[in-house]
């Protein structure tokens, strides 16, 4: 009887293998969030196995940093994740400050929070485009990516660069706010606050979006932390977790904001969390502008070509739109880092998590699920 069962099982497995088709989604694919590939086996249009393949983008930034001084790394840092480079700069700058014991002026901390929250909004505007575009809803992306330019205009005025800023650095920020900048920020926030309603009408009240996202790409709440889920994806599982509150940095502990959560663990819940976080970012930015003290914005570092840090290591975590990003730095007392290591949320979300939750899903939902997890391949392959 047992032998018969084994033969039957083997025959069934063979038949299944015959039925399964292997598809290569990426690395050149409009639905993929960057240069990576998801190799999936499908039966009909249901995914039975998924494997993330990377290796198209590795630039060995961590290794290159070992040949640069502590300041020269900034030209690499902003390229770790293009849509939102500021949290990476901030975590590196803060790790250096932790290791050296360098004080940062209060005004600089406020300006940093302003930068981080503007970056969060800008990144979410891109996410709107990716998330809705993955479901065939292209108009939203055209609106939000267009509106993102108003944030990039602010960045350009403040830092000189629209996408790569290299503005937050050890000791504070590179320059003070230009005259009239705070008013421009407030006017931009007023614009976005009105605009959010339009996005809602087009996205969250859209039946297609609701039906394609509810109950899709579900992460079980009880497994979420163990699987390394962080950021809006974790909050979309109903778990209140935010580094800005749990392990506060800069001046987040002086600001009043809430951490939105949603039960469900699906794409819909994650989208709702992100949508609410935009409103919280606007709230934070207004408080920052109102409460920002005057004074110094930069505690000057020594000549960077002679600047050494004490022996030891430091680890600084920042809450980005993708979740927890962090920088680990090791100094052997020289002018170069002994080792730097970047922890990106996509390193976990894009590989082990994605491979798990794709199983049982429809092949047409791969792109929507990837977008909802905030998978940023440059972050995996630093």
């Amino acid at each position, binding site marked *: 009887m047992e032998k018969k069962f084994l033969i039957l099982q083997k025959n069934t497995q063979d038949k299944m293998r015959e039925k399964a088709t292997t598809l290569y989604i990426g690395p050149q694919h409009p639905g993929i969030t960057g240069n990576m590939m998801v190799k999936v086996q499908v039966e009909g249009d249901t995914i039975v196995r998924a494997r993330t393949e990377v*290796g198209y983008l590795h630039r060995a930034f961590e290794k290159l940093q070992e040949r640069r001084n502590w300041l020269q790394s900034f030209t690499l840092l902003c390229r770790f994740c293009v849509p939102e480079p500021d949290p990476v700069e901030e975590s590196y700058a803060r790790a250096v400050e932790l290791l050296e014991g360098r004080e940062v002026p209060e005004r600089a901390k406020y300006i940093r929070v302003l930068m981080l929250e503007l970056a969060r909004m800008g990144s979410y505007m891109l996410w709107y485009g990716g998330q809705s575009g993955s479901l065939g809803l292209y108009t939203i992306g055209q609106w939000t990516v267009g509106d993102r330019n108003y944030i990039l205009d602010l960045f350009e005025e403040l830092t000189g660069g629209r996408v790569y800023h290299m503005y937050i650095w050890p000791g504070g920020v590179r320059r003070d706010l230009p005259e009239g900048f705070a008013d421009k920020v407030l006017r931009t926030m007023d614009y976005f606050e009105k605009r959010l309603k339009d996005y809602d009408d087009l996205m969250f009240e859209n039946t297609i979006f609701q039906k394609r996202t509810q109950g899709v790409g579900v992460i079980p709440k009880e497994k979420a932390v*163990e699987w*390394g889920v962080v950021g809006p994806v974790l909050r979309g599982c109903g778990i209140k977790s935010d580094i800005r509150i749990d*392990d506060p940095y800069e001046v987040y502990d002086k600001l009043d904001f809430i951490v939105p959560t949603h039960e469900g663990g699906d794409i819909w819940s994650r989208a709702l969390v992100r949508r609410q976080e935009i409103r919280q970012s606007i709230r934070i930015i207004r408080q920052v502008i109102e409460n920002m003290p005057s004074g110094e914005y930069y505690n000057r570092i020594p000549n960077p070509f002679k600047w050494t840090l004490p022996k030891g290591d430091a*680890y600084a975590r920042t809450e980005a739109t993708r979740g927890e990003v*962090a920088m680990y730095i090791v100094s052997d007392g020289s002018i170069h880092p002994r080792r730097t290591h970047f922890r990106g949320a996509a390193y976990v979300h894009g590989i082990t998590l994605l491979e798990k939750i794709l199983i049982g899903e429809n092949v047409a939902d791969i792109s929507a699920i990837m977008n909802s997890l905030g998978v940023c391949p440059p972050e995996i392959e630093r």
Partner: protein
Amino acid sequence: MMKELKEKIVQRIKANFADAAEKNDFNYNRLDFTVKKETIPSILFYLKDEMGFIHLSDANCVDWLEEGELELVFIVWSPKDKIKIFVRTRLDRDNPVMDNLDMIWPQLNTYEREFREMFGVQVTGLEAPDEFILEDWQGPPPFRRDFDTAAYAEKTFWERPGREDAQDVRETIANRDGEEIPDFAKKYSR
């Protein structure tokens, strides 16, 4: 409050892991423990299952070339106590072997693949494809300190014609093919 909490954690760890060398001179929410490599699985299991350090924040490897060792650093976070613990161990650089730990946190599988490929750490029991980021790599592990990136780049890549003597590529191509560079492009030429 934080100081008392940290002392309690240190006492519990030391009571259960006699070889854990502790460093507790940080004035913020961080603790450090250095253990033998054999203790790594048990201490990580203990921290996760018994002490609430359920979130693996990071795992990384540092090459201490001069000391002949590789250091593995695991950073775990307790959402309840709001404390992060660094668990460290050192491996012999000439024969770096560690146990597979992805039964504790599944995402460690990815970190271990990177340790194997970039630092040459052998992970016993690791179930994963041979290649992670590199393809057909025959050389030494590229993230080790003695891997010379500049020498590798010089050997592997070559300059496009026109670049070897720092000349403008457009000028070289135009000269070669007998073409004129348009006026609008000339102003950008060196």
